[in-house]
């Protein structure tokens, strides 16, 4: 934790909660009669409410995108590299809003919140929500904040998919969309990885069909395994090799089954910290939302036709070593936008960090991201 807050940090931040009593019709056919969304905001909304940026988070992200909750925090929010004074999403110019998705586990209504109809935790009975459901719920938050049109909706990975869905579903409510390290839908391989992760969680004896809270336990083994697997897909072979290589913890082979290689130790550490901060039912739900995401499905699988409604100008960014959502997946999006005659700018960033590159302050990435955001800033009056 820093003794003093960095000058380019949004500083100490607090959360806000929106309670909604208007029922939300979900894609799965069920209805949430009431729900709440927890969110954070950074910067100041200008007079005509035209400088608002919506940040959509990825699978394991949450509403805490930037800054610190207290001086005791070990780390800032998950996208602190991109949000703050002088950073690409410059809080001197923009009013930034980041909600926790419905079905999340950090405060918005989800599996680990109380179902008002039963007085018990939703647990596995929480309906599976989709990317479109998230967009609808986020538009309710926008209404509440008086934001008729976002200056931009921005997201990476699953967050990028939400941003794309925003541009497709509610085209007149955003002027720009930034889709980073995303894909127009998951591939069979992507779904396969998700299914292994879900199987790991569901086959943990402590899972209890999702009712683990009632048994005062958590499926730590299964959730940890799911995270280990996920983490491998977030990094590139090259990045892992550079960071760990074949380095041994104790310097010599032990000829046993305990942790020997540094990479094993790292994965176990990642999984144990994740288990402490994330909910297994939410993990299942988020992976299903990813699997179901396929906006072109409603347009006879024609992605170009899907883009026909777009009004926002788009920036699409991919990373060379990302094999979870490779540059080719971003190119599919760009190609459809071009064929639909839409405004789009596309950059493929040379980076060896794999999918996780979208969270890192890679100079060229920050330059392009920042240039684009500056252009947006020039279109709106500051607060």
């Amino acid at each position, binding site marked *: 934790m820093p003794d003093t807050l960095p000058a380019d940090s949004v500083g100490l931040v607090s959360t806000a909660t929106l309670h909604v009593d208007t029922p939300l019709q979900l894609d799965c056919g069920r209805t949430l009669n009431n729900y709440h969304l927890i969110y954070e905001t950074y910067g100041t909304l200008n007079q005509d409410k035209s400088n608002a940026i919506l940040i959509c988070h990825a699978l394991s992200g949450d509403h805490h995108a930037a800054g610190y909750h207290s001086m005791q925090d070990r780390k800032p929010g998950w996208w602190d590299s991109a949000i703050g004074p002088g950073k690409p999403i410059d809080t001197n110019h923009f009013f930034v809003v980041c909600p926790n998705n419905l079905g999340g586990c950090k405060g918005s209504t989800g599996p680990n919140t109380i179902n008002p109809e039963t007085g018990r935790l939703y647990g596995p009975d929480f309906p599976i929500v989709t990317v479109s459901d998230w967009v609808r719920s986020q538009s309710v938050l926008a209404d509440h904040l008086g934001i008729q049109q976002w200056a931009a909706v921005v997201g990476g990975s699953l967050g990028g998919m939400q941003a794309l869905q925003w541009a497709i579903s509610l085209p007149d409510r955003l002027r720009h969309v930034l889709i980073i390290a995303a894909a127009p839908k998951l591939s069979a391989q992507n779904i396969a990885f998700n299914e292994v992760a879900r199987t790991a969680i569901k086959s943990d004896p402590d899972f209890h069909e999702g009712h683990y809270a009632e048994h005062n336990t958590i499926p730590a083994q299964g959730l940890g395994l799911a995270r280990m697997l996920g983490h491998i897909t977030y990094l590139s072979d090259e990045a892992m090799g550079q960071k760990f290589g074949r380095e041994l913890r104790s310097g010599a082979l032990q000829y046993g089954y305990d942790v020997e290689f540094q990479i094993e130790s790292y994965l176990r550490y990642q999984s144990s910290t994740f288990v402490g901060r994330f909910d297994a039912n939410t993990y299942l739900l988020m992976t299903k939302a990813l699997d179901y995401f396929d906006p072109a499905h409603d347009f006879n699988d024609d992605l170009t036709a899907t883009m026909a409604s777009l009004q926002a100008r788009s920036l699409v960014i991919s990373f060379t070593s990302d094999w979870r959502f490779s540059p080719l997946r971003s190119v599919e999006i*760009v*190609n459809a936008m*071009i064929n639909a005659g839409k*405004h*789009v700018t596309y950059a493929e960033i040379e980076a060896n960090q794999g999918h996780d590159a979208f969270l890192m302050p890679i100079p060229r990435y920050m330059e*392009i991201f920042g*240039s684009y955001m500056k252009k947006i800033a020039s279109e709106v009056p500051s607060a």
Partner: protein
Amino acid sequence: MSLRIDLQIISDWIPDGARVLDLGCGNGTLLKHLQQRDISGYGLEIDNGKFAECIASGVNVIQADLDEGLPLFADQSFDFVILSQTLQAMARPDFLLDEIMRVGKQGIIGFPNFGHWLCRWQLSISGKMPVSKSLPNAWYDTPNIHLCTIADFEKMCADKHLEIINRSIVNHAHKDTLGIRLLPNLFGQIAVYHIQKQNS
């Protein structure tokens, strides 16, 4: 700010409202200029710095390597595909020209004329590779690896059954001199061609 000579020629040939693709668009000057006339489209640029400049000026820009062709773009999907001062830097100019005529209904190609008398003079008298205003690099570090003359380019067009709709051959002062009119391949420094497939 006045446009570079070749860009001014190109701009004059494109009607209002057209849809264009500018290959090797640099900092987006031409596209920005064309936007004022409701001409929309995309630039392709590989250089990082110029790419960021395009973003700053609000030009749609796609980062792409032209040596890989134009796989992002559908057949006949643009009114004009523009390639200015870049043909000579391609690994396979003929392949890119095929791609231009696949994607564009018409093509506009500008290049420095290697047949200009100064180039010929430098090579024949001094015995050294020409260095000029349009070709400022030494032979070993030049990006211009496939230089051609006006005669060479017109032969390639004929071989590929491309019709030359219009051509503009000028010097750096943008003067259409008597010399250029009589002997364009000897006195022209910059050549810009407007082409389309024959019988199209």
